[in-house]
């Protein structure tokens, strides 16, 4: 398009100059002197700058140029106070990264729907727990519904799943699934993967399609059909390096041959947010695994979780009633006694998937969001402080610019452009920091990372964060900006800020200080509470040493080893592991300590009444080397004997808690006890030793009563085994050596869960510890930012009063009384903030009670410390500049700006 080039600013200036010269020429002709002519010509022209400005603003292209100019000007003037600039940008970046990460987490767990078609039609079926339900073998989860308070269970029999599909007209499709861990063998290596057995209708019910190949169909889920598997994107990447030839490749799942037929898209990570499923196999395969927990035929084995799709218009209530009668029909076929109860069916909305983690995490996420909001508010007030202080400090500069012809809009634009520079920088840094922060958060809740993508992948959360950033900056800049725009020129130009000057700026700061104080107080209380939680958690005496221990799990029972052969393999593994140079000792146990699992049975000591506390005893099957490896001191008697004990009289080493509960102060050595469960009932176990108390499945629960038994006493039910390796070798090298060693015995033995005991410790109190660390860390940073912002604000308002202080001193006020005056006034403002902050803190701390350990939500130490810290910061922030002001020579002070 043809378009004339816009005139440049330079060209315009030249024209103005030429005009003035022409005018001067004319005046000279009329007889004026050279100098007078030029002066009068200029006078006649009027405000040159203003004219130039008007030219400047009249052209559109120039607007862009002007923006660039504004940005440069803004940046230059911001850099004059690099620290305040850094604090404002830093707090904004922190706020943006924290909110992006927290919102991503909240979005993934609480908001986002499953990435399938019409997710709102999906329901999960559960049944209300009842002791008379005709179930013998139940697997799956059992939880108390957070909304109704009812205890519900997840699983049904295979027959029930089919009855729901055939007999409930309100469902358009019904699918069954059973999540489990499987041993996947491919390309010569075996590994545990998180998987799910699914019915042939599962993918169709969800309307989830494969990214590559196909999903599992109903014809795959029949007995005697060739077995197929569908992989997640993550597993396909991890194990097959995204090789398209993986489709059609043969793998082994729990030693059964299976062909890969499809790969799911990356966004589909299963139906449970926070838990990613990597492998799908048809339900019919369950029979081939020959495990008691799975059966397609036994009606009392309930293991199938149900997801159903509602027909349009169908109500949940009607569907639940119909499902109840369908279940009744199935139960009638096998429950001989007419009294068998048909449990009530509950339909749970599953548009967001199976929200077990989410329901549990909800509270944490709310607290996190509140924290993030506080950080955002602090960032906002810091920014407002900075801009306000700058505008007021610049009043005179602004007045000069206004009188030189700068438009008021232009001045406002400067303030806004400064805010925008901070906003853009803050948003950039914030978004970059969001990804690692989210990774940290995901780890903290123990969720699978691929199931919680950073939500800015879909732009919504990012948009919110950036919008928030700009809104914050604009809100913070408009107020001081408008103030500058309204500036009354004459006094501002003359301004020496005598007594009580500052006007609106001071009034605004009087509002900002209490807000800042209240927010900081909330954060300090939170730091106090969670900091003490951290200390309490760290001070727990576990009863054993967690350092220099690597743990792993191996399971040779899935490869055909049984009983004595199995025990022999495990002994072989132990010997070879212990032979690795640098390994001190190796212990075997059927559960790892602090791994969250335990076996419990009821112990009865022969010839003694049941103690008041009951007989509940935690069982740990372990090797003779267990106590020495875990550094558990033996208090009485002897430790566990070595060798195969399956043919020997059963023995046990109990802990102090067990001994004290059953025998008080008497020695338990030589006493015998029995367990209640069928597989242990026959044995009369002799106590041969007592060890110190230890925690077992987790850190939080006090040390339980434990009976340690030689693992060979459990030879019939022997399956997987945990190994604890004590060594000073680096973890990675040791893990590699251990894997190689076990592989050399039999490459088909899967090795999994290679973790240090420290990791297990961290995981056990992971949620509490990470959350406490997160709150303390975030809180500390935010409180620091608030303190810096507060200091800057106080220092600024005190320095504004230099002239006032000068007058007071000139009139004979003492230095200290003047200092006290300033400090007292600041403390009054702070007191206002504290008065608002304390009730808010008391009210809010109720909500974090369940996340604390060893400290009450109204912990007086935390509150007193928070208030004391606040007073110190405020007093210092007021006193330091006040002292400086009071030391200035009175005359200088009076002249000070």
């Amino acid at each position: 398009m043809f378009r004339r080039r816009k005139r440049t600013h330079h060209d315009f200036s030249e024209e103005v100059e030429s005009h003035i010269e022409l005018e001067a020429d004319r005046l000279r002709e009329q007889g004026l002197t050279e100098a007078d002519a030029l002066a009068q010509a200029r006078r006649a022209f009027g405000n040159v700058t203003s004219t130039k400005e008007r030219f400047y603003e009249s052209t559109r292209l120039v607007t862009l140029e002007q923006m660039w100019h504004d940005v440069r000007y803004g940046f230059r003037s911001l850099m004059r106070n690099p620290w305040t600039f850094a604090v404002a940008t830093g707090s904004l970046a922190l706020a943006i990264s924290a909110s992006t990460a927290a919102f991503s987490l909240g979005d993934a767990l609480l908001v986002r729907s499953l990435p399938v078609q019409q997710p709102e039609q999906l329901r999960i079926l559960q049944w209300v727990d009842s002791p008379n339900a005709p179930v013998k073998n139940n697997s799956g989860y059992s939880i108390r519904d957070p909304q109704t308070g009812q205890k519900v269970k997840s699983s049904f029999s295979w027959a029930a799943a089919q009855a729901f599909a055939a007999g409930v007209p309100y469902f358009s499709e019904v699918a069954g699934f059973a999540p489990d861990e499987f041993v996947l063998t491919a390309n010569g290596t075996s590994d545990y993967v998180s998987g799910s057995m699914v019915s042939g209708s599962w993918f169709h019910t969800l309307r989830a399609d494969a990214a590559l190949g196909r999903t599992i169909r109903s014809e795959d889920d029949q007995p005697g059909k060739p077995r197929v598997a569908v992989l997640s994107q993550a597993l396909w990447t991890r194990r097959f390096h995204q090789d398209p030839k993986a489709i059609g490749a043969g793998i082994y799942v729990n030693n059964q041959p299976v062909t890969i037929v499809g790969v799911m898209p990356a966004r589909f990570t299963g139906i449970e947010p926070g838990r990613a499923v990597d492998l799908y196999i048809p339900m019919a395969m369950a029979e081939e695994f020959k495990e008691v927990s799975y059966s397609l035929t036994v009606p009392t084995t309930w293991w199938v979780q149900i997801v159903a799709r509602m027909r349009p218009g169908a109500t949940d209530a009607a569907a639940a009633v119909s499902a109840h009668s369908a279940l009744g029909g199935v139960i009638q076929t096998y429950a001989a006694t007419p009294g068998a109860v048909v449990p009530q069916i509950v339909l749970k909305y599953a548009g967001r998937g199976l929200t077990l983690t989410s329901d549990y995490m909800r509270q944490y996420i709310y607290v996190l969001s509140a924290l993030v909001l506080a950080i955002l508010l602090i960032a906002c007030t810091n920014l407002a402080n900075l801009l306000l202080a700058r505008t007021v400090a610049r009043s005179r500069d602004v007045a000069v610019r206004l009188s030189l012809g700068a438009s008021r809009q232009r001045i406002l634009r400067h303030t806004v452009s400064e805010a925008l520079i901070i906003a853009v920088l803050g948003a950039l840094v914030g978004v970059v920091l969001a990804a690692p922060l989210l990774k940290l958060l995901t780890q903290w809740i123990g969720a699978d990372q691929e199931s919680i993508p950073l939500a800015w992948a879909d732009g919504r959360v990012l948009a919110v964060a950036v919008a928030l950033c700009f809104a914050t900056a604009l809100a913070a800049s408009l107020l001081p900006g408008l103030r500058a725009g309204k500036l009354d020129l004459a006094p501002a130009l003359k301004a020496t800020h005598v007594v009580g000057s500052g006007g609106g700026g001071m009034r605004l700061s009087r509002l900002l200080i209490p807000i800042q104080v209240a927010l900081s107080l909330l954060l300090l209380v939170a730091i106090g509470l969670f900091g003490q939680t951290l200390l309490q958690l760290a001070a727990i005496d576990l009863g054993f040493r967690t350092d220099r221990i690597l743990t792993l799990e191996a399971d040779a029972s899935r490869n055909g080893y049984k009983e004595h052969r199995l025990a022999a393999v495990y002994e072989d593994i132990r010997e070879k592991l212990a032979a690795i140079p640098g390994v001190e000792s190796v212990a075997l146990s059927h559960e790892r300590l602090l791994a969250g699992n335990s076996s419990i049975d009821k112990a009865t000591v022969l010839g003694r009444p049941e103690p008041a506390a009951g007989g509940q005893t935690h069982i740990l099957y372990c090797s003779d080397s267990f106590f020495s490896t875990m550094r558990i001191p033996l208090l009485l008697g002897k430790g566990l004997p070595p060798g195969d004990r399956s043919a020997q009289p059963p023995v046990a080493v109990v802990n102090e808690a067990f001994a004290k509960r059953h025998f008080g102060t008497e020695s338990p050595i030589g006493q015998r006890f029995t367990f209640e469960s069928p597989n242990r009932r026959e044995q009369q176990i002799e106590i041969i030793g007592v060890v110190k108390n230890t925690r077992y499945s987790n850190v939080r629960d006090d040390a339980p009563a434990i009976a340690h038994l030689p693992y060979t006493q459990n030879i019939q039910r022997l399956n997987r085994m945990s190994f604890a390796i004590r060594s000073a070798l680096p973890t990675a090298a040791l893990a590699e050596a251990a894997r190689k060693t076990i592989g050399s015995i039999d490459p088909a033995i899967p090795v999994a869960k290679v973790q240090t005991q420290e990791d297990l410790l961290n995981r056990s109190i992971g949620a509490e510890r990470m959350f406490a660390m997160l709150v303390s860390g975030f809180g500390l940073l935010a409180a620091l930012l608030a303190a810096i912002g507060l200091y800057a604000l106080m220092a600024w308002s005190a320095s504004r009063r230099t002239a006032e202080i000068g007058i007071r001193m000139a009139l004979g006020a003492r230095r200290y009384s003047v200092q006290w005056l300033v400090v007292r006034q600041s403390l009054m403002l702070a007191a206002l903030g504290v008065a608002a902050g304390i009730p808010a803190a008391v009210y809010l701390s109720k909500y974090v009670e369940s996340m604390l350990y060893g400290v009450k939500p109204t912990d007086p130490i935390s509150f007193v410390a928070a208030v004391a810290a606040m007073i110190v910061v405020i007093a210092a922030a007021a006193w330091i500049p006040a002292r400086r002001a009071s030391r200035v020579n009175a005359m200088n002070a009076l002249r000070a700006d």
Partner: protein
Amino acid sequence: MSTEDKDRIALLQGTLDLLILRTLGLGKKHGQGIARSIQAESDDVLLVDHGSLYPALQRLEEKRWIAAEWGVSENNRRARFYSLTRAGRQQLARETSQWERLVTAMARVLKPKETEG
């Protein structure tokens, strides 16, 4: 700003624009010359604010009613010379007739008042 608006108000700005167009109707002139010319022809009744003149010229140039080029003045100063374009000539005719209508209308309104008073 729409044309209807201009018909009714924009007296001050419109006046200066009209005067500039009228002055340029007589021939090429630079800014200072335009100001002098207006002043002289109105017998010094109309005093042109030099500060407003150049934004007005800029405005008219953007509307393509006048064109400009750098040249040399009679006393050998470099100056920017303005001339009327074809569109500017049409605009001058339009604005002149509008102005005359306005003056007639104003006169009509103002006269009866005088007789009454």
